[in-house]
């Protein structure tokens, strides 16, 4: 952090000012002039919270994607299919058993198994052949999409939120002051906050596992130099299978989350594949903190954009990507 400030004082200053303005907008009671200029504070706060929680969902999808790419150089364009598959599995389990938490576990295990099969059958045969991997996974995603359409139809599915998470809670953030002088607090769906907290926990756990454990050390070494790692006697194929299973499982969990927040339908696979592509391009390929930062930026841009400039919301996301590519083609937090 301090090195970044030393090397790019201008960028650091701009980021600090932006963060300060953002915090003021969230915590302060807005003066009347501001409300007239850009609308009510409740709308703004809702957009910010939606953006952050959506960023949590994007992080779950993109972190698996970037982990697989960073370690194995496997371009898995069927990652979106894993997301949708996890979502459908979660829906089936939660409607059959009524247990929301169980659906996470089953979705994780089943998508991880699909990931293991993918790694063993497809990727092990074409190691280092990026373009063939791309083509094959595109073909696979078409096949998966059609199989899932066959099995589940074109309907929208929504996973039922468990009773103990239904309903909004009041947050200690003032949205407005009534004429009687009584403050109005923000009400926000509890389930989105819980899921966001869970994705933060998963992210922190992943960071700790990567940076503080022996397995994480092996994985980081593999990202830097696979061949030397293999030469030191690590059974790298086993590591690959494990990481692929974990990354795929994360996509499956994200599917259940997405099915609870939003809905599941054909086409969501491509949407989330693209979201994770943009997130990792912005954040930097193969970097977990990069995926977190990218997911936050893209989620916020999407939600704030859809509130304040609805027509151009998608273009804002895209412009961010272009801007990042123009300034730092390797992504914001990539090391290279």
């Amino acid at each position: 952090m301090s090195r970044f400030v030393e090397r790019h004082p201008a960028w650091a200053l701009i980021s600090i000012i932006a963060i300060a303005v953002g915090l003021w907008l969230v915590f302060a009671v807005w003066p009347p002039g501001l409300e007239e200029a850009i609308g009510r504070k409740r709308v703004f706060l809702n957009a910010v919270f939606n953006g952050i929680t959506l960023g949590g969902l994007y992080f779950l999808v993109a972190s698996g994607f970037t982990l697989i790419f960073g370690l194995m150089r496997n371009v898995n364009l069927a990652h979106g299919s894993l997301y949708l598959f996890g979502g459908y599995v979660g829906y089936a389990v939660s409607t059959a058993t009524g247990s929301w938490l169980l659906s996470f576990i089953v979705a994780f295990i089943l998508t991880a198994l699909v990931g293991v099969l993918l790694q063993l059958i497809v990727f092990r045969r074409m190691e280092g052949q990026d373009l063939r991997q791309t083509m094959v996974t595109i073909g696979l995603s078409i096949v998966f999409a059609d199989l899932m359409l066959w099995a589940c139809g074109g309907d929208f599915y929504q996973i039922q939120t468990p009773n103990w998470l239904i309903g909004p809670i009041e947050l200690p953030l003032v949205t407005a002051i009534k004429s009687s002088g009584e403050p109005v607090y923000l009400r926000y769906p509890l389930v989105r906050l819980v899921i966001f907290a869970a994705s933060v926990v998963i992210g922190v756990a992943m960071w700790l596992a990567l940076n503080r454990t022996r397995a994480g050390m092996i994985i980081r070494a593999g990202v830097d130099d696979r061949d030397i790692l293999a030469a030191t006697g690590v059974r790298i194929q086993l590591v690959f299978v494990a990481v692929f299973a974990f990354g795929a499982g994360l996509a499956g969990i994200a599917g259940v989350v997405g099915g609870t927040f939003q809905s599941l339908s054909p086409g969501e696979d491509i949407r989330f594949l693209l979201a994770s592509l943009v997130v990792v391009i912005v954040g930097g390929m193969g970097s977990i903190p990069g995926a977190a930062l990218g997911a936050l930026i893209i989620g916020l841009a999407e939600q704030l954009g859809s509130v304040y400039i609805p027509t151009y919301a998608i273009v804002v996301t895209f412009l961010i990507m272009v801007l990042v590519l123009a300034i730092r083609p390797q992504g914001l937090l990539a090391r290279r």
Partner: protein
Amino acid sequence: MSLAHDARVTVRPADVAQRPARTWPEINNPAAWIVAIILLIMPLIASGFFLIEIFATTLILGIMALSLMFLAGYGGMVSLMQLTIAGFSAYMVAVFGVSGNANISLGWPWWLAVPMALALATAFGTLGGALAVRTEGIYTIMITLAIGAAFYYFTNQNWAIFNGHTGINTVATPHFWGVNWRADIPFYYIVLAVAALCYFAVEYLSRAPFGLALQGVRDNPRRMAALGFNVNAHRVAAYAFASFVAALAGVLQVWNYRQISPGSVSVGACIDVLIIAVVGGITRPIGPFIGALIFVLLRTFALDFLVRLGLDGNRFRLLIGLGFLAIVFWSSDGVIGLWQRWRQSRRPAANRPGGGRGHG
């Protein structure tokens, strides 16, 4: 080994060694003459349905895939936004020309609207290309895919220019010299002429100094840079040419269907263009047209075929996906590669040039 290098290896033509510098090889090739004559007299043989729904559609899709083949085969850059460029050009024809949406279309005559659309779409593709050449290999695929997706969602949401998800309908087609150029037979010949033009332009460019330099850049960018070539300028120029080709296809596309909507620039359709080019073969300009013919035939007849086999006719995408998977699994240069291998296996061993190299 760097990413870019790996990506290049797979798209590099396997038959470089077998093909010495030739001038116009098709002149001596009877098969090419037969195909050309059949294409020219097609209106005598085929009904209106086959002429437009099969052959004209094949040629239009083939032109789009040809622009991708030029970038991928000669430049080593796999771009998934070629359909987006074509779609942009089609939208521009609808916006500048005459259509059913009087409050959007400016009502220019076609000879003014089409050059405008071509110029804007080429500029759009070149800008996208300038962005994409900053990256290499797999990143190029992802960025061009993201550009394509951004355009798709944008057309879906923008009502001022693109008329949202309903798109622009009843686009006027050219009508002059007393001929309705959208009638089946004249339109077929227009499409055939443009396709032939693009095909020969790509054939010519691949042997022209620019094309040779581009192939040099594909094989070894560092060496070309050391020789004094501006690597990025060559790549951007390749995108400009490919964008123009794709834009031509877009104009024909909008004349063919007389309407354009976000559905025709969807992400799935962008990927279809890649599938077409890869299935046909990405090493030679004829490949995309073969791939397009296979794709259109499958799309048109798979339903009947599957129903006859007692299966669900809606599984046509499954069939295409599985076929695509089979081809990329077993032959990296598509149908052309399979055909060449089959020919070589029938040739006596003594005639085989360069040992087993061609099998790679």
